């Protein structure tokens, strides 16, 4: 055995047996079990996605989800598991298609708003100066203006026949990019202040490298959270618009179906199944997104974590 202080004693085991981290899958599963919100939310989303995909493949939704396809006003039965409505839509087909369309609107508008938000927020925070002031100024001025009002006015002014799910997505997107912009900007600003950006600059990384290798990975939780919020907001807004009769009225959007059912006084006429499925589906969608939102809250704010 050596006696010098500076070298470890020879013959001692070099390192204790290496510690095995449980495999990724197990850690993710454990986390989802603990973060019940996220787990349940994702489960619902998966269920809905499966429902839509399997439905789209097995049912001829292009025909059956539209009026005059099948017998009208039929309660749920073996032939029409969800019943049919006054106009002759097969409600199962309508749900499958409507869910898909709602998702499309939500994701398109949500993704576009988040993308724009990330880009603008980033540019604003990273480059600062006049660019920052302009972008922030615009966002702040637009913030107190209730977006739904403007969306209603826009939707109300457009020629009814030219409204499609894509126009709806556009209308919704136009007024929802400000939120993500401000959130991302705030995050980038706080990161800019932190040492690791300066260290990266000092170590010679180019701006672009810093952006992609250092900043973006840290931004991901916030981008993800903003995205979920944006999708939620988009679906929320599109429902509001369609339930007022301002959407693409021919499509079996969930809001549209409810609108029609109210027009025909479905409740009072005893056709309870007509508004029921859209309401249930919508509740599922909203709950799932809210749960995911709450779950993501935990990731962004680690102190929320509960452990047994």
């Amino acid at each position, binding site marked *: 055995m050596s006696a010098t202080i500076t070298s470890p004693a020879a013959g001692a085991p070099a390192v204790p047996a290496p510690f095995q981290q449980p495999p990724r899958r197990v850690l993710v599963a454990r986390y989802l079990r603990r973060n019940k919100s996220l787990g349940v939310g994702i489960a619902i989303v998966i269920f809905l996605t499966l429902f839509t995909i399997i439905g789209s493949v097995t049912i001829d939704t292009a025909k059956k989800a539209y009026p005059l396809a099948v017998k009208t006003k039929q309660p749920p039965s073996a032939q029409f598991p969800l019943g049919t409505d006054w106009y002759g839509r097969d409600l199962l087909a309508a749900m499958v298609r409507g869910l898909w369309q709602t998702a499309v609107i939500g994701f398109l508008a949500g993704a576009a708003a988040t993308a724009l938000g990330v880009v603008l927020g980033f540019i604003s925070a990273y480059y600062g100066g006049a660019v920052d002031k302009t972008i922030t100024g615009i966002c702040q001025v637009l913030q107190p*203006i209730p977006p739904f009002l403007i969306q209603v006015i826009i939707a*109300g002014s457009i020629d009814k026949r030219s409204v499609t799910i894509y126009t709806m997505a556009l209308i919704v997107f136009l007024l929802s990019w400000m939120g993500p912009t401000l959130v991302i900007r705030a995050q980038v600003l706080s990161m800019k202040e932190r040492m690791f950006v300066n260290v990266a600059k000092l170590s010679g990384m180019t701006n672009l490298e810093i952006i992609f290798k250092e900043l973006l990975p840290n931004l991901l939780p916030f981008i993800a959270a903003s995205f979920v919020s944006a999708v939620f907001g988009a679906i929320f807004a599109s429902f509001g618009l369609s339930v007022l009769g301002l959407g693409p009225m021919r499509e079996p959007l969930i809001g549209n179906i409810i609108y029609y059912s109210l027009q025909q006084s479905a409740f009072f006429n005893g056709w309870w199944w007509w508004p029921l499925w859209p309401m249930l589906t919508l509740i599922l969608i*909203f*709950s799932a997104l809210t749960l995911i939102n709450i779950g993501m809250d935990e990731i962004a704010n680690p102190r929320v974590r509960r452990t047994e």
Partner: protein
Amino acid sequence: MGDALADAHPHLIEVSEVKLAYLARRVLFLLVVIWVASTITFFIPRISPKNPIRERFAELARTGGFSPQDMEKIVAAYNAKFGLDKPVVQQYFDYMGGILRGDLGVSLNKFPKTVWELIMEALPWTIVLIVTTTILSFIIGNIVGAVSAWPKSPSWVRTLSIPFILLQGVHPYLLGLLMIFFIAFRLKLLPLSGAYSVGIQPELSLSFLLDAARHQILPALSLILASVGGWALAMRGMGVTIQGEDYVNFAEHKGLKQNTIFSSYYVRNALLPQVTGLALAFGSIITAGVLVETLYGLPGLGSVLSAAINSNDFMVIYGIVLFIVVGVAVMMLVVDLVYPLLDPRIRYETK
């Protein structure tokens, strides 16, 4: 070295100077917001080919029997009278000028009623609904949120708060529908729609007010239940952050009772930032209110707006949107002014 405030007096003068400048900035900001909002709302309905005057007369023509040529002449005459035949940009400036004079114009569809009259008739219904809903959902939501994030709350309270938080996701319209169906239709506990029972004359008597109040319950409930979750979620997030703060920890080290820590250390600090959200919440409740009013047939601003959009009565549309934006803007200003009274750190901004 940042020592004690020795003498408060010279300091106070500094503070009020700063406050005045701050106030001026905020007011200017709000004026900009109002201007942007009115400009946006001005140009949008002009895209539509619908002419409100023609709509109105078409309606009359159906029942009254004008000939098409006569109707066109009348419409043209009214167009000229309202200046609708001038170029749009010109109309814009005329309108802006009018606003500065306090003139919101005349409803094109419901002529001869002025926009201002329409707003004033509808306003009381909307204000009562919005104000009560905002306040109640703020209080209930924040309590639910605070309690659900507090680890020492009894677990039944925390489980109960989960559905509340989840409700945030559900659209108030949906909630309204469900409630109409179950409570009003099936159980017949509360009225289906309308602001007051059919046949009763609106007046300032107790029986009328009670009747009207009964009609407000379901709409208010729809809005409250839908907004509570938002506050609860935000408060929960805030609450969790505050819980991790050193001073909450130290409060426990000091041997304070959990109730004291909950109220003076936890809630007081978590609630403060929530107050800043009041103004925007006000705005979002107004927009939700539009839908709820339509659903329940309440003759508030929302219904008037709905009708105006359907007939493309743009004067009314401008007026109402302007009114709402001003309302939200004023709320923001109020909140800005009240906040320093609550948070001692902001008071002495000059330091």
